[in-house]
């Protein structure tokens, strides 16, 4: 579903160039989840942007469902996303119903409303609240609404960018469950970008460790947590209290 083939990203040119990514390769199959872990500055952000199609790689290629990522107007992208800060992920001036319905803009109004209600119920939000603004909801609820919007786009790939880092502990568990259920139901591939190894344990099939733009380790999740190969990975695990 997702193919990242020897991707590199360089900003600037000549001696001053910054290399954000270098020689990154991996694939993610439909229905599977790959976790990309690493510290800030490791290149996780850049990788996410390349996969979403906001930027182009300077070398290598990215294929989502067989084609390079393209942002077209008029139809939702095959890649959808859930972001770190729930309060920033939804337009503060629009109702949540309008936000969730944004990927469905081309559909007739009645159908859109019905689908929005369906999706809200699916993520555990009372559909009658579709007319309310984000300020009326808690962080956990906003994250669910965010997921509802992502699902509205019927994604083949879901990018989860620190989806639980800004949430309380008890709410994190709910979001994890929601992601597992949604993926089981829809069968999308999932790319989980996070520094929180605990949710990686629950969600990921494979783990990819990035450091300084390069892949340090890429293994099956169970193997990774049982005995990480790289020293750096061991450091990361040790630091996770």
């Amino acid at each position, binding site marked *: 579903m997702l193919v990242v083939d020897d991707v590199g990203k360089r900003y600037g040119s000549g001696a001053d160039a910054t290399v954000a990514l270098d020689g990154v390769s991996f694939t993610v199959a439909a229905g599977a989840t790959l976790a990309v872990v690493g510290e800030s500055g490791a290149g996780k952000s850049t990788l996410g942007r390349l996969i979403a199609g906001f930027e182009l790689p300077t070398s290598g290629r990215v294929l989502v469902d067989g084609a390079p990522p393209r942002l077209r107007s008029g139809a939702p992208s095959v890649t959808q996303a859930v972001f770190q800060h729930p309060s920033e992920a939804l337009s503060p001036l629009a109702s949540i119903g309008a936000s969730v319905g*944004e990927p469905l*803009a081309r559909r007739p109004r009645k159908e859109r409303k019905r689908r929005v209600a369906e999706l809200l119920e699916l993520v555990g939000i009372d559909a009658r609240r579709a007319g309310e603004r984000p300020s009326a909801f808690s962080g956990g609820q906003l994250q669910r609404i965010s997921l509802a919007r992502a699902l509205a786009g019927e994604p083949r790939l879901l990018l989860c960018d620190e989806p639980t880092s800004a949430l309380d502990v008890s709410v994190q568990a709910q979001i994890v469950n929601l992601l597992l259920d949604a993926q089981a139901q829809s069968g999308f591939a999932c790319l989980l970008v996070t520094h929180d190894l605990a949710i990686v344990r629950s969600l990921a099939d494979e783990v990819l460790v990035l450091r300084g733009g390069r892949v340090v380790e890429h293994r099956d999740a169970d193997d990774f947590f049982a005995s990480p190969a790289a020293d750096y990975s061991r450091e990361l695990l040790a630091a996770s209290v």
Partner: protein
Amino acid sequence: MTRATSALPRPLRLPGLRRRTLPRPGAALWRGNGALRWGVLLLASLLVASAVGMLVLGDPNEQQLADAFAPAGTAGHLAGADPLGRDVLAWCARGLWTSLTVSFAVATLGALIGTAVGVVAGYAGGIVDSVLMRLVDLSLALPPLLLFIAASVVVAPRPATLVVLLTFVAWIPYARLVRAHVLTERERPYIAAARLAGTPAWRICLRHLVPAASTAIIVLFTLQLGYVLLWESGLSFLGLGLQPPHVSLGYMIAQGRDYLASAWWITTIPGLVIVALMLSFNLIGDGLRDAFQLDVEEAVHER
């Protein structure tokens, strides 16, 4: 900076401030906001006075040379008469209306043009942004007064042409302000989500970016009203703006310039009207700014 960042476009956050939302309309804006209340009251009073005056007092351009220099308080000329016998009060009533319409027209046109330029420049970035911003720089480089002097030689000064001229100058601050807001806002995740949802660029600009800058646009609008008023009056005073038969407060002020000691009402009364208008604009502007600030503060303390 080592800090756990999100993978997709990083939101630029003003430290300590959370999301701004449009202020709740109606009651919340009004309550406890003295400046806004007084400002609106004053403006409304002036409007009503102007309307009544225009209906009741007859043609301000009518010259009754017999009544020239009639002092304030004379029958038929409550505010006196000017050197040509024109009724000052009738002039003020009509002039107030002219000033209001010109100010609002310029501020509105400026807002529309400036916002459009700002949004396009901010969202598109790259060459489009550079070109548009050079256009802004160019416009800034032209001294407005010289522009008006030159224009007045070529074009007959009428309210419509004055509006066009003043708009040339008025759109610039909007463009810069809106562009700045858009540059910040477009990094926010919900804009990224909108792009992923397939929302076309024009829709993102109209539905998300412009509303996000709306509080700033509104505040700038109220400030601009005052500036345009002063420009219009000033130009008319200098003889570059509106001249009879068009009725301008600035013109009447100029008429009384040589008679300040003897016939004070010719200059002073129109002057006071301008002061009252400015005051109402400023009060409304202050009130709105306070209301928006309050909303930001409350958003911060909601936790």
